[in-house]
């Protein structure tokens, strides 16, 4: 049964552009081979970390949102742990509110629910 998941992971900033691309392709391949269907993919690029991880103050953030069979998550996370260029990763199962929220965000309502309220009030 396919459930919707969302994974954010941080890559080491010292990687070159091509290495980053290879890493992303590698994880995307793990997903697609495992029978997952990629819904959305975002690269937030180099961002400042709130606290140093592995003595690095910046990191390359990548977001995957996908529909996957439940047993694929374990293999994906083993892959993350094995790859030392990945500094941190977080996989989250999305409930219906989460899915609906992401669709609105991707659609570019850019309201992110609360900002819209703020804009109305402002």
């Amino acid at each position, binding site marked *: 049964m396919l459930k919707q998941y969302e994974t954010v992971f941080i890559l080491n900033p010292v990687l070159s552009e091509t290495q980053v691309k290879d890493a992303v392709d590698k994880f995307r391949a793990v997903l697609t081979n495992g029978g997952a269907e990629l819904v959305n993919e975002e690269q937030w690029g180099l961002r400042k970390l709130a606290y140093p991880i592995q003595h690095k103050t910046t990191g390359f953030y990548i977001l995957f949102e996908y529909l996957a069979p439940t047993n694929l998550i374990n293999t994906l996370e083993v892959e993350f742990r094995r790859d030392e260029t990945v500094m*941190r990763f*977080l996989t989250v199962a999305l409930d219906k*509110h989460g899915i*609906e929220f992401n669709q609105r965000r991707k659609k570019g309502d850019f309201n992110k629910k609360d900002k819209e309220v703020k804009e109305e009030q402002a």
Partner: protein
Amino acid sequence: MTLQNEPIQRNENRKKYCRFKRHGIKYIDYKDANFLLKFVNEQGKLLPSRITGTSEKFQKKVATAVKRARHLALLPYVTDSLK
């Protein structure tokens, strides 16, 4: 010059409300750091619901979202001057 018997801080005693119920927000996004900043004090610690007025159900969602954001280094665990 405020009147003698008029309470000075008008907004101190306004009725606190749960912003999630009021605006119908159903999902709290852990990736949206600057929204979560509203629920964290200067040291980066979670504000109690008696201060923010959020209901218990959404306070738990905020707590998990903040902890996830901290894990992803979007929010600090502890800091001295967050805002």
